[in-house]
């Protein structure tokens, strides 16, 4: 059956050793927690292994052979990342620990330089805490304001609210918006938002943590000013985030983390900072994992991001249909798979999501439950928590069936 889909999933699954694992006393693992972090193909695991076995070394500053090899591989990843999102140059690619740190870098460096008292930063109700808290900290420090653009009851962004806001002559210093919701799956009309914002001279930060792993993303076409995402959500290792910044903006930003590697010359009381992007990478980087990330990008490129998206649309359509037939289920977010990613949030009867996740786990099904680091959205949906199943390239319709079967089991356990 899988052969008919966008991807040869059976073949892909062979590249992911963990998928052979049994959990909960012998159940095959059905991993549906991909929005939190994805599994890693052997190629990524081996790349890290190979680095430590053969050429582990600190980079940039040394002449010996291991250091040269490590430096070359490390910088190759930067080239691959730049190409993957179609940045103009590697100078625009900064490695951080994760998407969260990438957004904080913007808030600390660009934000503290540019945001003044009474300024407004615009975000939305679908944001992940990582795209809320840094702006709360910044605005409260500066005496600036935070404005939320709302969503409608189907989980779509109320773009008109933002249009009206701008039309009324109100100003914004910065807009920071998630490209794809990690709860509802909603894909926001990012191109319009950016176009409208630029017309008023407002730069835009895109939280691409959920979009970059799951669909083709082109920063030049999109014309965003900043974009943040995490390697671990796209087959890569933990500990690597990426911040893309347009060069002309980056050139004017003061450094964030001060230390080794980000300087050109340090004197007692003054310092000349390093060229881009190194100015923003203080200290020894996460060398092994950055190198491992290159293998993840290769893997995704081999498949093709169009195909990744196609597969997820197919699977999401199938899953939405199946889940909606389970009695007592409430689904959140857009019902049209074309408008959303492969992230399905729902509740069922009065079963709390944690309890549901526990029951799912008994059946080998790994889903996530809770607020998904999106409590503002939870308040908007007026639920304390949701359950969330999220897909990636290795998930199958058969797994969706197991998941839906487990849902029925949960209804039995809770006697609803």
């Amino acid at each position, binding site marked *: 059956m899988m052969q008919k889909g966008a991807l040869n999933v059976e073949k892909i699954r062979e590249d992911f050793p963990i998928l052979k694992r049994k959990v909960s006393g012998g159940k095959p693992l059905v991993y549906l927690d991909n929005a939190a972090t994805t599994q890693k193909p052997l190629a990524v695991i081996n790349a890290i292994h190979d680095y430590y076995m053969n050429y582990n070394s600190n980079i940039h500053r040394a002449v010996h052979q291991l250091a040269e090899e490590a430096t070359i591989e490390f910088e190759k990843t930067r080239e691959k990342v730049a190409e993957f999102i179609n940045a103009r140059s590697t100078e625009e690619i900064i490695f951080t620990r994760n998407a969260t740190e990438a957004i904080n870098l913007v808030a600390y460096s660009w934000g503290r330089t540019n945001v003044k008292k009474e300024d407004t930063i615009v975000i939305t109700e679908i944001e992940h805490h990582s795209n809320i808290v840094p702006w709360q900290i910044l605005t409260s420090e500066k005496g600036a304001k935070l404005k939320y653009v709302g969503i409608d009851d189907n989980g779509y962004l109320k773009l008109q609210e933002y249009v009206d806001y701008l039309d009324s002559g109100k100003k914004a210093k910065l807009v920071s918006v998630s490209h794809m919701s990690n709860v509802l799956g909603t894909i926001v009309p990012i191109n319009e938002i950016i176009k409208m914002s630029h017309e008023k001279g407002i730069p835009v930060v895109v939280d691409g943590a959920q979009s970059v792993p799951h669909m083709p993303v082109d920063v030049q076409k999109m014309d965003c000013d900043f974009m943040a995402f995490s390697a671990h959500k796209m087959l890569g290792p933990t500990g690597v985030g990426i911040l893309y910044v347009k060069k002309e903006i980056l050139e004017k930003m003061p450094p964030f983390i001060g230390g080794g590697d980000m300087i050109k010359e340090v004197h007692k009381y003054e310092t000349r900072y390093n060229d881009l992007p190194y100015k923003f990478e203080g200290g020894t980087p996460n060398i092994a994992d950055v190198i491992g990330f290159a293998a993840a990008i290769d893997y995704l490129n081999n498949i093709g991001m169009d195909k990744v998206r196609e597969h997820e649309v197919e699977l999401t359509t199938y899953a939405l249909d199946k889940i909606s037939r389970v009695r007592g289920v409430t689904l959140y977010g857009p019902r049209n798979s074309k408008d959303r990613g492969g992230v399905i949030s729902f509740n069922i009867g009065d079963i709390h999501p944690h*309890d549901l996740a526990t029951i799912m786990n008994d059946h080998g099904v790994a889903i996530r439950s809770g607020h998904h680091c999106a409590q503002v959205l939870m308040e908007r949906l007026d639920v304390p928590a949701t359950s969330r199943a999220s897909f990636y390239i290795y998930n199958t319709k058969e797994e969706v069936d197991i998941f839906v079967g487990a849902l029925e089991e949960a209804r039995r356990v809770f006697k609803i």
Partner: protein
Amino acid sequence: MSDDIYREIILDHYRNPRNKGKLLDADVSIHDSNPLCGDEIDIHLKVDGEKIKDIKFEGRGCAISQASASMLTEMIMGKPLTSVKDLTKDDILENIGLLNLGPARIKCALLSLKVLKLGMVKYYADRDPDSAKKLQSDSTGM
């Protein structure tokens, strides 16, 4: 496994919580949440000399956290503070009959105990700083 956890009594306390609500003339009220999952519990205590005269809780969250809170209020209602002070994790897990919870779900089961301990820290703060200190340290890591 799930069937062992979600026994009749747990579902009953979840759906029909005992001692749920506000306590207007409470001596101590305290709130905490489980950052890992967002479960929330408020506990309100009325202390009469040396014993718990009344206790109520408010909260939202999973069956385990809410049933555990409900069962905790029944367990300690009218009990002397000295014994309540020394309640351990195991006491609670035994009380709700769940001894095999994993590390994530155990936090749900113990949230109400944590809140209770924090409430008693507040209560003892001036009255008996040593007990307050001990309770505070008991409550961390729960």
